[in-house]
C-alpha cells in the first residue's frame, strides 16, 4: 500500500514536526522546521503535485527559513539549561483533540488516484482537462486554472502578497522597503 520511500518520508515529516514542537533552542527549531518543509515538498512530488512541491520547497524550506533566521539574529541566544520544552498538559490536550478531530476525517477522504473520487468524477475537472489547452493555449492545466479560469482569485493572491509587504512597513513603522 505505502511504498517504503513514502513511509520513510512520512515518518521523517512526523519526527521533524515533533522536534520542531519540542526543542527549546529556537535556531534548532528553525532548522528542524526547514527539514520538515523539505520532507513535505518531496511528498508532494511523489503525489505528483509538482507545482505545490515547488512552492513548498521555495517558500516553506527556503524563504521562510531565511526570514525566521534573520529575525532571530536580532535576539539574544540564552544558554539553554534544558534541551526540550516542558510539556504542559492543557495545550497538549487541545492539540491532541485537534489532531483527533482532523484525523477522524481522514477515512472519509478518497484513496489516492481513486477514479470515482469527486475531484475526478466532477464535470468541472473534465471540462478543465479537456478544454484548457484549446481555450488558453498553455500546456500546464494548473497555470491555465490559476491565470485564466480562476484569474480573479489569483489577482486577489497577488494583492495579498503586496499587502504583506505593506503591512510589515506599517508594523515596523518604516516608509521604504530597503
Amino acid at each position, binding site marked *: 500500500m505505502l511504498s517504503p520511500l513514502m513511509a520513510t518520508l512520512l515518518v521523517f515529516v512526523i519526527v521533524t514536526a515533533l522536534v520542531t514542537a519540542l526543542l527549546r533552542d529556537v535556531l534548532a527549531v528553525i532548522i528542524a522546521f526547514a527539514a520538515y518543509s523539505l520532507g513535505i515538498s518531496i511528498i508532494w512530488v511523489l503525489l505528483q503535485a509538482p*507545482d505545490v512541491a515547488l512552492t513548498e520547497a521555495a517558500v516553506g524550506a527556503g524563504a521562510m527559513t531565511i526570514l525566521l533566521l534573520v529575525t532571530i539574529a536580532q535576539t539574544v541566544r540564552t544558554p539553554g539549561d534544558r534541551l526540550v520544552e516542558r510539556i504542559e498538559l492543557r495545550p497538549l490536550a487541545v492539540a491532541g483533540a485537534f489532531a483527533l478531530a482532523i484525523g477522524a476525517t481522514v477515512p472519509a477522504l478518497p484513496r489516492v488516484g481513486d477514479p470515482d473520487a469527486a475531484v475526478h468524477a466532477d464535470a468541472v475537472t473534465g471540462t478543465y482537462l479537456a478544454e484548457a489547452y484549446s481555450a488558453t493555449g498553455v500546456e500546464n492545466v494548473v497555470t491555465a486554472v490559476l491565470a485564466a479560469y480562476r484569474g*480573479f482569485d489569483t489577482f486577489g493572491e497577488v494583492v495579498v502578497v503586496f499587502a504583506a509587504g505593506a503591512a510589515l512597513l506599517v508594523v515596523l513603522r518604516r516608509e521604504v522597503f530597503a
Partner: protein
Amino acid sequence: MSSEGREATYVESPIIMTTVRVVAPFVLAFGLFVMFHGAESAGGGFQGGVIAGAVIIMLAFAYGIEPTREWVGSSLLAIAAVSGVVVFAVVGLGAIVLGGGFLEYSVYGIDHASKYGIELVELGIGATVAGVITALFFLLAAGFDAEEVDEA
C-alpha cells in the same frame, strides 16, 4: 545598537562570496525559467518570484546586508512589488474596457492572446513576489528600533 548586532552576524568569507558569485546567475536564470515556463511545466510566478528574490538574499548573505541594501535600493523593490499588481490589474481590467470579462484574453485580438497574456500575468506575479520577499528580508534584518517608537 541594532546595527552593531548586524555587523556581528556578518562574517566575510571568501568561500561564500565566491560560491555565491558563481551560483547567483544560475539561480536567477532558474527563477526566470520557472516564471516563464510556468505555462508549459510546473512552476509559475509565485515560485519563480521566490527563487529570483532568493538571489538578492544570497548576495546579502555573501556581501553583507547593508551593502546589498544600498546596491538594490528601495525604489527598485517598491517598483517590482507594485508592478505585478498593476500589470495584473491592467491586463484584467483592460479586457473589461474592450468589452469582455475580467482577464478575457481573447478580446485583445492578437494570436495566442491567452498564452501571452498568462505569461505576462505570471511575470507580474513574479515581480511582486520577488520584490516583497526581498523587502521582507531587508525589513526584518533591519529590525525594530524601540527608541524610535518611543519618540514617535
